[in-house]
């Protein structure tokens, strides 16, 4: 067998599993997409919106599904039509939208700094003196306790 033919055969064999994986990719569906995108006019997730605008957006998605578009392609097409507001994500780099990302990061960082300072202090603190151990029972008390317990057993 000629080397070029051998290489071509090897490529076909190696490419076959990749093609199989690509074919096995799940088909996009409306329920899968509509809970991840917004109805931009209604200001609510598409899966809860009932307005005419939401119906048109669903029709647009169904049309793309019928044409065989993947979920990511459909989302990209929605962004082309409605802007990034169609994605159910806060706006990056814009006032309140940016805060949705920055506040949790700030809170976690603040908590980490607080713990970094507080933990060594807590460790350095001397343990509180433990309570004094109870005094051992006298012979008379022990006898009384035994008698009382024996009366319960009867």
């Amino acid at each position: 067998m000629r080397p070029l033919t051998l290489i071509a055969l090897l490529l076909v064999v190696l490419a076959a599993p990749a093609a199989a994986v690509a074919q096995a990719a799940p088909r996009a569906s409306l329920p899968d997409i509509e809970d991840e995108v917004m109805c931009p006019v209604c200001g609510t997730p598409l899966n809860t919106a009932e307005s005419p605008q939401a119906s048109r957006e669903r029709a647009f998605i169904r049309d793309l599904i019928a044409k065989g578009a993947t979920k990511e392609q459909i989302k990209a097409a929605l962004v082309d039509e409605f802007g990034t507001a169609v994605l159910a994500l806060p706006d990056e780099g814009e006032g309140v939208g940016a805060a949705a990302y920055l506040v949790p990061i700030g809170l976690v960082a603040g908590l980490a700094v607080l713990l970094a300072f507080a933990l060594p202090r807590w460790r350095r603190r001397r343990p509180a003196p433990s309570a004094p151990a109870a005094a051992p029972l006298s012979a008379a008390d022990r006898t009384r306790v035994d008698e009382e317990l024996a009366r319960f057993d009867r």
Partner: protein
Amino acid sequence: MKRVAVPAVVIVAAAALVGLLVYGLVAKSDNRTIDDTVARGGTVAAPSLALPLLGETARRSPADFKGRVVVLNFWASWCEPCRAETPLLERLQRRIRARGGVVLGVNYRDTTPDASAFARQYGVSYPSLRDVDGELAREYGTRALPETFVIDRQGRITAVSRGTVNAKFLDRSVLPLL
């Protein structure tokens, strides 16, 4: 001092969060500057933004029409009142085109196929910009469709209609500017 530091940090953080919420509410509140100024008989420089033209790749902005009287109309195919006023705007376009006027549509939060089908259905001959992000609508304080703004030859807003326009509004606000 140490006993004061922790509560102070907590108070500052809480104040920052409250401030953020207030900012969010203020930022999302209606922009009434245009309406208030025009209602007092004043004019406002028309906000402008380059946007793609419906059905084309070219971008245009309201400022590109400076020197002409522009009737800027925000519309969408899903907007029922827009169906009623579109024939009126089309008639206006034919009437003012030769006199230095133009109707400029701004298609708001719509899909291209739906918007194009709407324009075909109503025989719309005037151009429309696609306000994909709703950014131009925000600049004009647009919250509900349809809305129409009359812009004079100097690029200033002289009349506002928040709702369906009628022939009386168009005659009164557009014709004197031509």
